[in-house]
């Protein structure tokens, strides 16, 4: 029983970061309508920013969080203006090729500039552990989880209370009539894409502390985010959090209970996704 609860706890903590990155993707997919293969690269940028600031200026990653948010937002906005906006009216597959090219470019630029080595940061609280009775909680995963939740709550407030936020939701729910919004549409798209990048950037900083920074760290998260968004359903921003939880939980349960489960985690992740997608489709019929 204790093991089960600890496992659920582990899954819960991981789901925070997943939800953060996936929400970003859901924004760019649902609002701007673009399949962004380069989403994970914003995460990678955040992770590298955290490492560089730590290694060369001794800045604690906690401070880098805000910087990463802003920096990623900026880069995302620029990418939108320069690259995404021209292809908004193009066929979906063209957009995919563009973002794919962007992903390759960014990843290899990082490789060129920094080399393929993995880099780690060393803030003093990295391995701090809290114990709740018989259960162990890493301080950093807990912090990442709480922070993700906070950010997502703020996002929720923004989406339900502010005018731009409501406009975003309108666009996400009904992509056929963005023209009705007039000039607003441009601002909405830019904001959404920038936000998406910013969310990924913040997640990147968290990951730099929990895992590492490297040019290839973004790709796995791009993949998982797509899976989570597909599970939640396109345009369903609220569904991202429960979907992240389901997947993170599946990962945790498999790792703990299946013998040799460590190697099967990804397969189970995708099996769950497959069954959910297929099951939902057949049910809707």
């Amino acid at each position, binding site marked *: 029983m204790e093991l089960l609860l600890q496992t659920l706890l582990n899954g819960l903590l991981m789901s925070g970061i997943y939800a953060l990155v996936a929400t970003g993707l859901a924004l760019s997919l649902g609002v701007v309508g673009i399949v962004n293969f380069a989403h994970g690269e914003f995460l990678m940028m955040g992770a590298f920013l955290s490492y560089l600031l730590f290694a060369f200026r001794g800045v604690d990653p906690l401070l880098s969080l805000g910087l990463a948010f802003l920096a990623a937002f900026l880069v995302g906005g620029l990418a939108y203006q320069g690259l995404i906006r021209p292809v908004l009216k193009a066929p979906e597959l063209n957009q995919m090729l563009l973002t794919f090219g962007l992903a390759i470019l960014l990843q290899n630029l990082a490789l060129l500039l920094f080399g*393929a080595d993995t880099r780690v940061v060393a803030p003093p609280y990295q391995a701090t552990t809290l114990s709740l009775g018989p259960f162990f909680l890493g301080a950093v995963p807990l912090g990442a989880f709480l922070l993700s939740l906070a950010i997502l709550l703020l996002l929720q407030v923004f989406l339900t209370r502010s005018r731009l936020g409501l406009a975003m939701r309108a666009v996400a729910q009904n992509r056929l009539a963005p023209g009705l919004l007039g000039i607003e549409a441009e601002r909405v798209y830019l904001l959404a894409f920038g936000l998406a990048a910013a969310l990924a950037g913040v997640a990147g900083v968290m990951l730099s502390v*929990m895992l590492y920074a490297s040019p290839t760290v973004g790709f796995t998260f791009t993949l998982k985010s797509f899976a989570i968004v597909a599970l939640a359903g396109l345009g369903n921003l609220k569904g991202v959090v429960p979907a992240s939880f389901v997947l993170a939980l599946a990962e945790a349960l498999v790792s703990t209970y299946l013998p040799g489960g460590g*190697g099967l*985690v990804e397969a189970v992740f995708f099996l769950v996704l497959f069954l959910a997608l297929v099951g939902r489709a057949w049910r809707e019929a």
Partner: protein
Amino acid sequence: MRKVLGFLALVTGLAFAQTSLKVGVILPLSGASAVSGKAALNGIQLAADEVNTAGKVRLELVVVDDGTDAAKAVPAFTKLMTVDKVDIVIGGLASGVTFALSGPVKQYGPLFLAIGAASSVVEQAFEGYPLLFHYHPWDYHNVAAALQFFQYLNREHGARKVAILYEDGPFGSAGIGVYKQQLEKLGYQVQAEPFKAGSGQFTAILTRFRAFAPDILYWIGYDVDALPIATQARQVGLRPKLIYGAPPSWPIGFEKNPLSNDIAGMTAWLPTVANPESRRFVDAYRKKYGEVTEEYMAPMGYTIVKSLALAAEKAGSADKNRIAEALASLKMNTPFGPLSFKPSDTGRTKYQGFGPEIWFQFQYLQGSRRPVFPKEVATRPLRYPGEYYLR
């Protein structure tokens, strides 16, 4: 007039006394093994510069990238053989790629100096090929060296239980069966679990290991796993007496991270070893590249080029067979220790260079890595149990 002719003859004679070699270099400069590949290339280029300056042998390098991918390696190799027409190739870093190259190598027949490719599958593929010089130890050598360390821990420090975390790709899974078997023979209780490399999620497995209460936590994976394992072991309350890892390289910045204290690993070389050849290499490397490398592939590449140059000088010719002959009887000192070629333990490789003797175990302590085993190379004693057990 005769004096002029005589002088000309002398100068031409001297020019011919210098052996000129065109050497192909095929390494992973992109893809999964790029870190090792680039380090190897640095070492190779450094050695080539030194050789060319010394003047007795002239080396011309033709470098191609194999992308850690058979689909890229095969055409690149073909280009070296047919377009650049090299007779001598330095390559074979990643095992899978080298396996794919075994066919083309046997077809074109160059003198092949293998810098890596530890997998025995490669040894089988190249069996009987007369012009292979395999510098790097085979995987069974690596396992033997690690087992020596485990034996020492068992006998001198009373370690009885070992938990193995291995990545489920070819690197981690290759030796796991042998490890389990041999460790049990040594008297250990063994529990082994696979994980997906790069996933960074070890909490579940480490929690399971906690119940097992191992003395040694041994992980076989890549640099990306080092920090998560160290962090998460602490987070789940797993307290082994020794955390021991065997990745091909370690993350940058890890030594500055206090979590790395007392973590042990195995390597063939560190910039701090006392070997005079190594010190010379480190100084030259720093002068040329402005920094010190921790990757052992750099001195390995350096050693290969130096040995090749020596052999070419001895043979006095650029003919690959004469050079091979000279190389076969070569003895030289390297940053790893003495190098000479003899048949491998399995007999499949005619010219095996280094064996398990170049491996040694080190421990992180306050920002630097120090050799701790075997006793002959240790610069300080092993701290067992490590800090992660005591606090």
